[in-house]
């Protein structure tokens, strides 16, 4: 698929659903919208990069409590998350794409989580797995941070206590959709900078 590079238009290109050639349950990933010709296929750089990124999200499993064990089940052979490109979990934020915060984040752990998030390389995404990470969950106590979106911006929330492995994988797939449709210029837009500034993350 020789892709001729057109200057990436800024507008979000909404991906239309893949065309189901035959109704087999295996759904082939659809090619991004583009011009089909004799022996060539031209599309926007955003779409190609987005598709590539979405299929190779390396997770940083920030697993603290029960959701961490459910993530272990997701990584194991029955609900294999490696089918979605997340084969290699990277525990150092340098090579991680998506920060999966799983489990309770206490106030003592807040600065640690924030440090890990800030040291992740752009483009980075955050999935908050489980009720404790999303909103403090059942622990409305003096020592638990009521939701990690108080200290870091979150892209996908996965409800459940703990969410079933299918739910975690559904969260990853939702994030893949987000990544596929994200324009390359998003990280330099003023809105994104304002979002980070609202969390006190200084961005130069």
């Amino acid at each position, binding site marked *: 698929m020789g892709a001729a590079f057109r200057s990436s238009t800024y507008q979000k290109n909404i991906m239309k659903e893949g065309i189901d050639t035959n109704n087999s349950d295996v759904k082939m990933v659809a090619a991004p919208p583009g011009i089909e010709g004799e022996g060539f296929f031209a599309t926007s750089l955003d779409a190609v990069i987005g598709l590539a990124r979405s299929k190779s999200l390396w997770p940083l499993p*920030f697993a603290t*409590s029960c959701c961490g064990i459910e993530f272990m089940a997701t990584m194991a052979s029955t609900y294999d998350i490696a089918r979605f490109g997340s084969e290699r979990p990277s525990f150092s934020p340098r090579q991680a794409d998506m920060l999966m915060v799983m489990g309770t984040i206490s106030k003592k752990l807040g600065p640690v989580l924030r440090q890990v998030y800030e040291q992740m390389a752009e483009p980075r995404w955050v999935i908050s797995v489980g009720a404790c990470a999303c909103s403090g969950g059942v622990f409305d106590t003096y020592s638990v941070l009521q939701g990690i979106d108080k200290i870091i911006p979150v892209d996908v929330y996965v409800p459940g206590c703990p969410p079933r492995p299918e739910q975690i994988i559904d969260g990853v797939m939702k994030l893949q959709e987000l990544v596929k449709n994200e324009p390359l210029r998003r990280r330099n837009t003023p809105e994104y900078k304002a979002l980070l500034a609202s969390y006190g993350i200084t961005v130069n």
Partner: protein
Amino acid sequence: MSQYTPLTKKIEDRYNEEIRLRENEDGSELSILNLGPSHPATHGIFQNVLLMDGERIVDAEQTLGYIHRAFEKIAENRPFYQITPLTDRMNYCSSPINNMGWWLTVEKLLGIEIPKRVQYMRVIVMELSRIADHIICNSILGVDSGAFTGFLHIFQYREKIYEIFEEICGARLTTNMGRMGGFERDWSDAAWAKLDKFMVDFPLAWEEFDRLLTRNRIFMDRCIGTGAISANRAIEYGFTGPNLRAAGVDYDLRVAEPYSSYEDFEFDIPVGTAGDTYDRYMVRQQEVRESLKIIRQALDKMPKEGGYHADVPDYYLPPKQDVYNNMEALIYHFKIVMGEIPVPKGEVYSAVEGGNGELGFYLISDGSRVPFRLHFRRPCFIYYQGFTEMIKGQYLSDAILIMSSMNVIAGELDA
């Protein structure tokens, strides 16, 4: 978030004297290494600041409380049946044991007699979750020493145990199983069928897993002789459970203080000799076989009649169709749901043999609907104190193995 001086600085100030003194003859100095909160090797969130002499560990300092969720404070604001969801979030690798431990404490306080059949069902559930806990511990010990396939292979059987728990109580991991006096519903035929199927093909898989690791040359070299602790030193540090039995002491609560009719089953307690990582691994391997033996005996000797809960209308929710039809059930239902159950005033301590050791519940009740004070005796929190002594003088890579062989679970550590 208040800014705090990094812990490594505090430790460095404390060890400054030692660092300056210990100018090694080959010119190397002691260094401070931070095995910090977000680290692949610490399965969970706790921090070790290590004083290292090259590869060897000179001293270690632990920091806990990274997922402290104030269980004991929450337990003081919740009626009795709402505390079970708390207990299964403590040791989430074997949560049904915690639930059953809590129900045994409440039944001891309220003086409820449990029919034999329910006790046998509880024994089956506890032994199943003990197997699940040991599956995680031993397979993660394999992962830490590099044998990833063992984990992938044996973890399917933990999924099968999850399916059995789902049949019984609807949840996989945080089970919230059981009620005061028994179970919320009788076990469906699917649960019994899945249990029988599990009992057929799990022993073979377990022997396979055993053949994979136990006589593996690399695994033996890595585990034998590391992190040894003597028996009386282990008692001194308050070790209980597989870690203590690995050190050579045959203290097992199921035999020392039989509860829930454990005395009807014959099983023996595996005991190690050296108390090192390999012994802890072998004790857990053998304990899984003992648990299978117990489940088989429980399945054979299971009394047919006896229902699935004790006949205590004061504490056990009446079935829904009774509630709509007759008056007493409605009153009982209303009182139980509102938490106005008759609770005597007094203190009770009851302990259960959990996946990691003696899991105790110390309950002070002043007759009101919520416990006045509930303290959890968490085995992980107590025996993790011995970690510093066990890793002194060991290599850093062995310290990782020692930590995962002790099966320290963060949820139970910082409850």
